[in-house]
């Protein structure tokens, strides 16, 4: 078997238990690659038809600049490649944050109504279960 690695708050809730070993979290999101956007003084502004999108996964996150006419499949493929994800993409869906419906990957970013700075998550569509039970 090959177990190689694959890549790199909500409001406070009341009545939190006394947690003996709760880890501290850094302020910056872990694993988030930021290629630089329009507010990065070191880089030129993006063309009008370009947007920065972030794809969040359990194995890390990837932000990149895309043309609005790029398909969502290109966004997924780019993320999988950059994060070296070993995902069977037939079992995964791209979801806009807060939405339960997977995005149609053949749509362009513009057709999907995505805007600059939007976040999406790449996660399992159906995790499978014990059909034999």
């Amino acid at each position: 078997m090959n177990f190689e690695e694959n890549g790199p708050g909500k409001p406070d809730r009341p009545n939190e238990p006394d947690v003996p070993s709760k880890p501290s979290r850094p302020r910056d999101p872990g694993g988030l690659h930021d290629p630089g956007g329009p507010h990065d003084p070191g880089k030129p502004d993006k063309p009008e038809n370009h947007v920065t999108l972030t794809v969040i996964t359990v194995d890390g996150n990837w932000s990149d600049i895309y043309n609005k006419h790029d398909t969502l499949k290109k966004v997924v493929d780019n993320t999988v490649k950059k994060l070296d994800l070993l995902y069977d993409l037939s079992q995964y869906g791209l979801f806009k944050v807060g939405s339960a419906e997977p995005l149609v990957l053949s749509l362009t970013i513009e057709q999907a109504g995505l805007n600059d700075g939007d976040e999406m998550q790449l996660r399992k569509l159906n995790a499978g279960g014990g059909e034999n039970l």
Partner: protein
Amino acid sequence: MDPEIVKRFFLTDTKKICENESLLRIRDWRVIKVEFPIFIISMLHPKSHREYYFSFLHDNIPISLQVVDHANFLPLPTSEWPQGSYFLNGHSVTGGPFLCAPGIREYHTHSSHSCEDKWDYNSQEFRLPKILDTVYTHFINTNI
């Protein structure tokens, strides 16, 4: 599996999750405890907004899963588990509630799956990040 490898996986994978603020934020997850071999994370159900504590026993691969009490981290009875979406009761070995999904220890130890070779599955499916994805996908489809 070699205990040293299991521990290395634990340290690597829990760090990956704990440091991913964006993931924790968008999924309403909260890391509660990271102490080898235990990893406890809370998930807020998107419909009921009820918070569940999922405890992962990472002392071997596959990882074992329990839903535990918020205060003392002890396993909860079936009635306190999410209902539906392969959260089942009456495991053939433990007799208790379990999530019947590939990658989770209770699936592979159940008599109904004893004829399966767990190593037919992609090895990544047994790592904590993928297990969390599996649990989350089932959890948000439960009836509660």
